[in-house]
């Protein structure tokens, strides 16, 4: 074991410490906190993330130097639950898979923390904000580092909680609070499936393999005897859990609403890290998923559907953050499409590049919003590029990356997914790969279109807002632009570690991950075989460029076209603009149905203790006036009878406690005789 593994505990511990510090400050002083407190908070929070990042980096360097067989570092902190039957350790593991995630979480997370310092500068509750953000980082790290499903679930729930807290951060606004609630409830559906999957898996392992364990490292070795049908159900359950957290059909609806939170939160949680937890979970349990082609097929279909579906909604959104939110849903669909092929590295690769460019885009959007004084409607923007040049350039880079323009990170990862989708045969539906590929390709075009639409509407053309508002637009402070620049650089070059061999790269990422992931052998071409790959690349480049060109025509050259098209197909436009009425559909079915329940829950929340007290009181106390009319109590039923009895007994006991010493003394000697008699009789 390498020396450096001893320090793994610091990685989650530092954010936790940050949370505790901020939490205590926020809790003790709250609204009364002074500038000094604020300063402490703004220094501590990014600092702890930086510490985590540096430790991770140290481990990473060590890991790179080690031979391929010795790249798993684990640290057993604590034996958590230990019964004869099940053992769960708090065991932190850094292997080639988790370290990528940790680097993203802490690295991107650090810059987002830094950005937040500027973005949230004037917010009253900045300390609470940082407390939540640190707690989130901690939970996310636990999710990623945990070596068993239970620990992962702790992190899984933890990030859900933080997401809920942060979406509803400005809870004074009722809609925002409701958005938080919505996210929470929708996630609960997924979590429920996750728990079922977990229990089923555990039972199955115990039943079929006879080795009760929940540690990933151990699971991997014992799997084998479990029948495929059972495993399919288990993995499907886990996938449903993933759809909740990673916003796939049908549980994606919370993510667009989650934009109610502060923009850096959207960047960190709802773009770069938390929503990818589902992808990570599938990669972590790749040994289960690879054995169930059925599940993989389901994943592919749902993923492609999500990608396409969300992208179409993205075309007509006018809120800058909503566009990015639907784009996130769409990109997550891409990741799952990659996972569905069974070549899990593709999904992870896209996860990584997406974290860079989507983080960048969100932060850029935040910068735009801040610059234009909390205006989010892109129809009221325009021509901002001269006013906020740094934001513009970085945003442009992000757009190019996500649109799949060659040379930037998004191109490589997206292309890899499309290529693997095409060449991976499907055992159930032979044509499926081709269909999926076409959908993916179309999605790429749409993505390019709506992203450039966003870019053009925001930064080019004439300013469409109130007069004089343009004058007040100003570039964000340094502390916010630095993260933008760093992420822009990453968005450009981040893709090169996964460059396919066809382009002269060597796909480092694939080699890096393949020892820890169980997956289908990626089809690797040699020499002549590359032709087809080049062809497909050409297709996607073409599609991307045409999407961009279309956006250029629509929004720069002839801005009247969109309107006329919109009016011609107004029905379709309305349909898409209203997000296919999915929310309304859910509202009419699930929400209406559960609304009553939710109201109940709300009430329960408010009065939880009261209700509880009353409940017990009803049982125990309702009958305090029973003394005189014992009869009625008997009629009232058994429960009341018992309650009356309790109460009566209580008062009898109280009369015994008379304060009279002599009476007490009887009990000493009486108790002796009682005990003796019992002992003699038995």
């Amino acid at each position, binding site marked *: 074991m390498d020396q450096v593994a001893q320090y793994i505990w610091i990685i989650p511990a530092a954010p936790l410490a940050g949370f505790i510090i901020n939490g205590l400050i926020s809790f003790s002083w709250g609204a009364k906190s002074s500038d000094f407190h604020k300063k402490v908070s703004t220094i501590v929070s990014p600092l702890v993330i930086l510490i985590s990042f540096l430790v991770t980096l140290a481990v990473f360097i060590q890991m790179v130097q080690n031979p391929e067989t010795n790249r798993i570092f684990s640290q057993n902190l604590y034996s958590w639950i230990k019964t004869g039957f099940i053992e769960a350790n708090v065991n932190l593991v850094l292997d080639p898979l988790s370290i990528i995630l940790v680097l993203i979480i802490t690295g991107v997370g650090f810059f987002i923390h830094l950005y937040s310092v500027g973005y949230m500068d004037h917010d009253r509750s900045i300390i609470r904000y940082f407390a939540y953000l640190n707690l989130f980082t901690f939970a996310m790290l636990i999710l990623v580092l945990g070596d068993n499903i239970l620990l992962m679930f702790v992190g899984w729930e933890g990030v859900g909680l933080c997401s809920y807290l942060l979406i509803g951060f400005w809870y004074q606004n009722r809609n925002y609070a409701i958005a938080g609630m919505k996210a929470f409830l929708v996630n609960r559906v997924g979590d429920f499936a996750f728990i079922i999957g977990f229990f089923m898996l555990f039972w199955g392992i115990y039943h079929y393999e006879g080795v009760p364990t929940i540690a990933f490292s151990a699971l991997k070795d014992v799997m084998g005897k479990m029948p495929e049908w059972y495993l399919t159900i288990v993995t499907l359950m886990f996938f449903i859990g993933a759809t909740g957290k990673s916003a796939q059909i049908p549980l994606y609806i919370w993510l667009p609403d989650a934009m109610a939170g502060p923009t850096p939160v959207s960047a960190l949680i709802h773009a770069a890290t938390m929503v990818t937890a589902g992808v990570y979970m599938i990669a972590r349990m790749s040994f289960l998923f690879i054995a169930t082609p059925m599940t993989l097929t389901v994943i592919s279909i749902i993923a492609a559907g999500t990608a396409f579906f969300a992208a179409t909604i993205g075309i007509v959104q006018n809120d800058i953050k909503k566009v990015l939110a639907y784009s996130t849903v769409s990109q997550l669909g891409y990741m799952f499409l990659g996972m569905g092929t069974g070549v899990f590295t593709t999904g992870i690769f896209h996860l990584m590049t997406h974290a860079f460019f989507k983080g960048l885009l969100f932060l850029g959007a935040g910068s735009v919003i801040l610059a234009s004084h909390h205006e989010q409607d892109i129809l009221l923007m325009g021509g901002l590029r001269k006013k906020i040049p740094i934001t513009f350039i970085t945003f442009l880079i992000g757009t190019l990356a996500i649109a799949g323009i060659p040379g930037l990170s998004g191109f490589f990862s997206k292309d890899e997914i499309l290529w693997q989708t095409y060449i991976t045969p499907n055992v159930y539906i032979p044509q499926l790969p081709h269909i999926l590929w076409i959908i993916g390709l179309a999605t790429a075009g749409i993505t390019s279109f709506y992203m450039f639409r966003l870019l053009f509407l925001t930064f080019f053309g004439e300013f469409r807002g109130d007069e004089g508002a343009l004058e007040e637009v100003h570039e964000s402070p340094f502390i916010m632009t630095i993260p933008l620049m760093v992420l822009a650089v990453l968005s450009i070059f981040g893709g090169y570690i996964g460059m396919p061999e066809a382009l002269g790269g060597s796909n480092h990422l694939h080699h890096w991950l393949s020892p820890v992931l169980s997956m289908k052998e990626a089809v690797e071409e040699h020499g002549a075989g590359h032709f087809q790959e080049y062809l497909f690349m050409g297709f996607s480049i073409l599609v991307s460029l045409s999407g961009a060109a279309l956006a250029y025509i629509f929004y720069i050259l002839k801005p009247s076209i969109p309107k006329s098209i919109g009016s011609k197909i107004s029905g379709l436009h309305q349909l898409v603009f209203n997000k296919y009425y999915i929310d309304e559909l859910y509202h009419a079915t699930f929400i209406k149905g559960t609304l009553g329940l939710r109201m109940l829950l709300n009430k329960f929340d408010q009065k939880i203790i009261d209700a509880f007290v009353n409940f017990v009181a009803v049982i125990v106390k309702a009958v305090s006036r029973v003394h005189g009319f014992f009869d009625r109590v008997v009629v009232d039923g058994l429960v009341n009878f018992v309650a009356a009895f309790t109460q009566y007994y209580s008062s009898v006991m*109280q009369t015994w*406690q*008379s*304060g*009279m*010493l*002599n009476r007490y*003394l*009887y009990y000493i*000697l009486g108790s002796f005789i009682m005990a003796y008699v019992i002992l003699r009789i038995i």
Partner: protein
Amino acid sequence: MTSLLSENPNSYLIISVLIFSAGMFTVLTRKNILAIIMGIELMLNASALNFITFSFFRKSTLYSGHVFAILIIVLAAAEAVVALAILLAIFQQRKSVMTDDISDMKG
């Protein structure tokens, strides 16, 4: 076993039981706290008598019973001191030493 009562351990043990019972009766019935303290003294003495009797008749060389008896005497004295001190405090406050009058706290 000799015929002499004074050399029969059972006579001592029965005396002890009787004294203990008398002490018990005292603490159960008397309202005067001083009387209750006396009852406790009787009960303690009965136990001490048991110790002496057993160490005399069971194993004559065993003197730990004597040590115990002396300890009982000492601790009984200490307890009496404490009890009487508190009693006097009560008397100063309430001008009474009857259990009826020190029953403020109940329920």
